Every structure is written in structure tokens, then in C-alpha cells.
């Protein structure tokens, strides 16, 4: 366990900064850019969701309980709209959108949607899953867009990118600092 902690600590400098994360459909976004471009940042818990047809497309509206607001002002419950979902026997798949299931917790960067409610800014880039160690109770945060292990044929190794397993206190402090830099009020 001590070795594990040392190894993780040795990698923290690399993990603390968003690397060149640019999903094909997404522009490269730093934590500062996410904070500045978001209307709100919050820790949320998924309460449920439903998909429906709307203006020729399938949308999924997920309802979240707001656990903690890090930026902006939010009601206790919010609705987040994302393209894609399943209605009847048809599934609309949109790679790069985050998927949420009841009970799951995450820190999400939110942007007001023109269609009402919110959307997740940067999709998988703006979604940070919270995981709790069942033994210690410690919580860590992993960015959805860090989900890809890259295999580099030149070095014949897999390597990880993005924010992964960061202690939530550390992540919260980084987000708060990014929000402050963006010149927005926090509460």
C-alpha cells in the first residue's frame, strides 16, 4: 500500500494537469477553460433519466440531485440534456457523451442548454466521476475522457491520460482555483 501511494504520488505532477485531451468531437479543454466556459459546476447525484424524440432527434434528459455547488447558483435538482438515448426499438448513439445511471455521483461542468435545462460542457471532458473506497471511505475523481488507455506501438506500452483517481479534496481545490481565475463567483 505504501509503495502504491508513493508511486501514485510520484505521478501526481503529471496527473494534476489536464493533458492534451482532444476527443475527436471535442476541442482541447483545460480545467481553466472548462471553468470559464461553464455556467455552473456542481457535485451531483443521478436521480434518473428518460429519453425521447424531440425535433427529429433522440435526447436523454437526466435528473440530478445537486449535492454541492462549486460555481454558480443551482436549485436542488437540475435536468441535464444530452443527445442520444433509446426510445422504443431505436437507439441513437453519440460517442463522446457521458452516460449516467441512478445513484452515480460526479462533478459536472454545466452549461445552460438552448433547449432548456443544462448540458455537460465538453461532454466527457466535463464529467468527473466520484468513486468511494469501501474500506477507507476516501473519495477520488476520474475524468471520463481519461477512460482511454493508449497503446503506443513504438514503446509497446499502454499509458493513461487525464485526471484519474485524484483525491476529491485536491480536485475540489483545483476546480475552485480555476473558477476563481475565471472571475466568477463561487459559493
Amino acid at each position: 500500500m505504501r509503495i502504491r501511494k508513493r508511486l501514485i504520488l510520484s505521478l501526481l505532477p503529471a496527473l494534476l494537469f489536464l493533458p492534451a485531451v482532444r476527443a475527436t468531437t471535442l476541442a482541447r479543454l483545460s480545467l481553466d477553460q472548462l471553468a470559464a466556459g461553464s455556467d455552473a459546476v456542481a457535485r451531483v447525484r443521478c436521480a434518473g433519466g428518460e429519453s425521447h424524440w424531440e425535433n427529429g432527434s433522440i435526447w436523454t434528459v437526466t435528473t440530478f440531485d445537486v449535492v454541492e455547488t462549486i460555481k454558480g447558483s443551482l436549485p436542488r435538482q437540475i435536468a441535464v440534456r444530452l443527445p442520444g438515448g433509446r426510445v422504443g426499438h431505436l437507439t441513437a448513439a453519440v460517442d463522446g457523451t457521458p452516460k449516467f445511471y441512478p445513484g452515480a455521483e460526479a462533478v459536472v461542468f454545466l452549461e445552460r442548454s438552448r433547449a432548456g435545462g443544462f448540458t455537460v460542457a465538453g461532454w466527457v471532458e466535463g464529467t468527473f466521476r466520484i468513486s468511494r473506497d469501501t474500506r477507507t471511505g476516501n473519495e477520488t475523481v476520474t475524468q471520463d475522457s481519461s477512460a482511454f488507455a493508449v497503446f503506443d506501438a513504438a514503446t509497446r506500452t499502454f499509458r493513461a491520460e487525464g485526471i484519474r483517481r485524484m483525491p476529491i479534496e485536491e480536485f475540489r481545490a483545483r476546480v475552485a482555483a480555476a473558477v476563481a481565475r475565471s472571475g466568477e463567483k463561487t459559493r
Partner: protein
Amino acid sequence: MNANRRGKYRNTISVGIAFLFLLQVTAAYTGAYDLGTTVADMTQAASASGGTSCPQLTRFDVSTPGNINRLWSTLLNTGPITILTADQDPDGQLDEIEAVIEQSLSVWTGVSGTLLQPSALGALQRGDTTTVCDSTDGLNTICFGQNDPGFTLGVLAFTVVVSADTIGEQLPSGGAPSTFVGEILDADTLFLPSNPNTTFATPAALPSNPNSYDLESILTHELGHSFGFNHSGVWGAMMFPFAPAPGQFTGSRPTAQSPDAPLSDDDRTGLRVLYPGPTDSAHIGAISGSVLPANPLALPISPAGVTGIFPAQVVALDNATGKVTAAVMAGWSCGDPGPAQFDGTFSLQHLLVGTSRSYQIYAEPLDGPVVLGNVIYNLTSLCRNSATDPGWPAQYACTVPPSAAPFSSRIRAGP
């Protein structure tokens, strides 16, 4: 491990891979997954479900020439201008963009050993309505000027792929009913039209617009999604999820001699799995095996029945070229009538065979702290159950397990 591939006919080499329960900080939360899958609605009659709950590949019906219709919207945003061309004449501009579309499509239809040949595509049509990228119309459309509310911070382009989970399903506006489970009925690609700081340049315009994204690279990637690809975890693959930086392009530019030049072998192999060519006698090799924990206690307790590592990214490296031939997200198998079993199985198919052909296998178990299904898999792409579908038959139910604990890997030869 070296697996020599010999002989003209398909051979399968079983590979056992054991993972030591040790920390490896470079072990990554793998998320690559090559191809989309769909589980049939088993609450329906067998004539509609196909009688199996095994995940089916999501793909177009290419059995009929010209079956994949194609349309692009000539409505381009003018405030701001987001599509940059070398030709400034309005008609020339449209021709230049259309040439990029044709070129990007040719990249995928230029792969040998697949049924996705140019004849599978219909003629490229032009449209000029504002909402032409509509998932209900059954038209596979590319839009550059449709300001869809799906766009948000950082989203440059996205593709919406609509598929059916039953046979005989139609889109709301009608159209031909699906002929198999997983058939793609509509696939639309939208480019961000409204950000003055985000522009896309044709190959001819890119050198003079180095801050623009390469239209051809992004479009080729998006078309990969439309044909049924998910992302690949292979560095340099067209379906790698991260786009080239502005001013750069992915791989090599296509040529008449090598129309599929921008693709990697991983992309080509994936396409051969999606649309296998019945007369392909070159890419008939397969390597299969399982990814197992050295200590079975490392496996998740819930859901029950998990006997192998899920998921794991398994990569085949061609020893002759040093390049990745194929990479799959593995860890499950399925035999009709299903459901999927999470037994650590992997299968790399449609590999090139030859007397001197050999491959090395690399595997990386997922060690992420969150459930993979939250991130990569759609809720119903591998498993469906009474929680996802009320009334779901118990005998066809399964649950995607959580990712495993951190592992490091040690590979040993199989039996």
C-alpha cells in the same frame, strides 16, 4: 508471446493471460472499444429479435448495392464562416467541400477484404434545408451549418447513429424496415457552425489556415462512427478519440493508389470485422484466448458469474511491421441464445496470415475506479435486464460488471 500464423485457412490460437495482483501505475482505465453492439429486444418474438440476446454488431446493410444513401447540406454558415476553402467562388467552394466528402468516404471504401465497397454507397446528393440532419428521415447526412442544440463547449463535431434492436423496425418517418438486429437506419454528422474561433479547412486551404482543423481528418473519423465504429485505444488510429491539432492531419493523405492511406491497420481490421468480404483469402487469421486473474478472488462478487477480467484492451502487434494490427476491448463471450458471459475472452479476427507472419499480444486490464458502463458502453450494448427493460426474460438477462481492481500483467502461453 509469439503466435506464428501459418497456413491459408483460419487458425485459432488460444492464449492464456494471467494477471498478477500487483500495482502497476501505468495500468490504465482502458476505454477503447472498437465496434458498436446492440442487444436484441428479447421480449419480442424470435422473428423480431432473431432469437438471441448475444450482442450484435451495429452496422449498415450492405447486401444491396447503393443501399447506403448519402446527402450533404450545402447550407454553410456565413456569420461566422467556419468552412474554409481555397476556392472562393460559391460554386467552386461547394465542389471543393464535396470533393473532401467523397475523398473521406473513399478512405473507408478503399479497404481491401470488406463488403464496404464504393458500390455499397448511393450517389452523393446535395440538400439545402435547415434541419436536414434529422434522425427520423433515414438519410445519412453531413451538415456544416446546422446549429444543433447538442453542441456545447468544446464540441467540434459529432455523429448520431440510429440503429434498431429488432427486425422490421422503422424510423418515425418510415423508410425501409431493419432486416437485422443492430442495423443502422440513419447516421448524421454535424460540424460546429457557430464559433468564430473554430474553423475547418479543406486540404487545399489548410496550409494557409494553420489554425483551422483539418476537415478531411475529422470527417473521415466521423464517417468511421457512421459506419459502426466506436473509438480505438491505438495511438495513430483514425478512430483514436483525439483529433490532430489544428493545421495537422491524421495519417497520410489518401491517394488514387492508396485511398485508405489515412487509416491504420487497426482501423482496417475493424472494418473487415464489421463488413467482412466473403472472398477475402488474406485476412483469415484469428487469435483468441482469455484474460484471467491469477487470483480469482480479485474478480468482482457482483454480478454473479464473472469468471475473467472485464474489460481488458488486447492488442496484436505485427512483428513484421511493428504496427498494431488490431486492438479490441475484450473480456466477454457469447453463444446463442446468450446472454453475454464475462469470462475474460478475447478474439482478434481477420488478421493477415502468411508463412512468416507472427504477432505479439499485449493486454491491459481495466483498473478504473468507476463502472465502465458509465463511460463507454451504452446501457444496453452488451446486457439488458429487468432494470433496463421491465419484463425482460430472466434467462436472457445479464449485467455489465464493474471494472476490476488494479492489476499488472504477466503473459503466459496457453494450452
